Structure formats: structure tokens, C-alpha cells
């Protein structure tokens, strides 16, 4: 079994906001991240798949095809968007990176070819903050 990672990136706006709470409660919990006029990040998405290298190609999965898949299924729908307003698969979810990484997994995992499984997603929000999700 070999793990192959492809790194993609997107730039997006968001805010952390729970609509069930008052503005004051949101500001108390989320601080500056609750700014009603949004803020934004350069996000990096690390997609790790696992499989057995194909005896003919030597590939677990063609990295170029993996890149195309990640861009079509996820990155093109997130890049230069407002995550709270523009992204259908984040609607009615709080726009934390924890929730975003789980949603990305659901968008991506069903579209991998037979014999290739999604192992890990790492979503980097800033050089100092990232989350990892293994589908559990």
C-alpha cells in the first residue's frame, strides 16, 4: 500500500457564525472570526489517497488525474467564493474548517476510481492552523 498526496489551493471568504445565537454570543465564541462582513484565507487542501501501484504504470493514481478530480469536484466550487453564501455543500453548516473538511470528503470520496481509497484530507487555513480528517 502506498500513500499519494496532491496539494491544491483556493482563496475564499467566510465567517464563523451560528445563526441560532445572538450577535453578542457569536462574537463571544468566535471573536473576530464572526465579523459580519467576512474575512478570508489562502486555503491549502492536501489530498492523500492509498492503493497498490499498478504493475503497468507504477502509479497508485495518476497525480495529474487526481489533481483534475480534486479541482472539478471541490476546488473550482470553492476558489474565490464566499464559503457561507456561494457553496451549496456548505449550506446550513457552520463554516469552520472542521465542517469544511468533512464536507469536502463527502464530495470527493465517491468519485475515486476502483482500487484507490481516500486516506486523509488535510485542510490548511493559515500557516499556523490546519485540520486533518480520515473519514472516521
Amino acid at each position: 500500500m502506498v500513500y499519494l498526496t496532491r496539494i491544491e489551493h483556493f482563496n475564499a471568504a467566510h465567517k464563523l457564525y451560528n445563526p441560532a445565537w445572538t450577535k453578542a454570543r457569536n462574537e463571544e465564541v468566535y471573536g473576530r472570526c464572526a465579523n459580519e462582513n467576512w474575512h478570508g484565507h489562502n486555503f491549502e487542501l492536501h489530498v492523500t489517497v492509498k492503493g497498490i501501484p499498478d504493475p503497468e504504470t507504477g502509479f497508485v493514481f495518476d497525480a495529474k488525474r487526481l489533481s483534475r478530480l480534486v479541482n472539478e469536484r471541490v476546488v473550482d466550487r470553492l476558489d474565490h467564493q464566499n464559503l457561507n453564501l456561494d457553496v451549496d455543500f456548505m449550506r446550513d453548516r457552520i463554516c469552520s474548517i472542521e465542517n469544511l473538511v468533512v464536507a469536502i470528503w463527502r464530495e470527493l470520496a465517491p468519485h475515486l476510481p476502483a482500487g484507490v481509497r481516500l486516506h486523509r484530507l488535510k485542510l490548511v487555513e493559515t500557516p499556523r492552523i490546519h485540520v486533518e480528517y480520515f473519514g472516521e
Partner: protein
Amino acid sequence: MGRKVTVSRREHFNAAHRLYNPAWDDDRNREVFGKCSLPNYHGHNYELIVRVTGEPDPETGYVIDMKVLSDIIRAQVTDRFDHRNLNIDMAEFRQLNPTAENIAIVIHDILRPLLPADLALQVVLFETPRNSVEYPA
């Protein structure tokens, strides 16, 4: 004659913006600025490098006390820009498109009067790890 040294302080802020010229219609904005003009904003992790050049003071050995420089940048720039929408929340960009170029000029103009006149100042701003601007050029 002393020898000039450049000292740099790196800070960061995260902000939303869009590129938009109100004198143009939406089609023209879309044509020129592409995805960057989308109406609901997008955002970046901005990395700011403030470069100060001068002769080290003979008594302290400092061009400028980096703690003092850091405090100025934080109070005047990063505390004001961080987690903001540059177009909506910042008076400086009400009439000015918040491109990386213009953000660097605005930051320079905020800091310039707060630093000793005999020290040169340059602002380097990374909008993404791949795009950066420098002012003055």
C-alpha cells in the same frame, strides 16, 4: 560614515476583499478582474514584511528597536486589517480598489510618519505564497 543595514519585521493578517472598479459595469469588472471581482468577496492570508533601512545607532546597535517596530505595525496595521473586509470595513479603501499594490501603498503611508525620517521604509506584501508586491519599488 556608518554602514546602512536593513532590518525586517514579518507580520500577518487575514482579510476578505474583492477587486472592483465602480466606474465600470459588472461585465467589464469580470473581464478585467476575473474571479477576484465576484460580488460575495474572497480572502487571503496576507503576509506583511516591513523593511527599515538605516545606520545602526552607535549606543544601542539598533537600526530600530524591533519590539517598537512590531508594536507600531500591530497597533496601526494588523489590528485594523485582521479579520476585516477591506472593501467594507476600511475607510482607506472606500474609494480605492484593494489590490495588493494599493494595500502596500496604504500600509506604507500609515507607517511612514510613525518612523524616524532618517530611516528608509519599504513594505513587502504577500497576498498568496505566489503573489507579492513591494513599495516603494
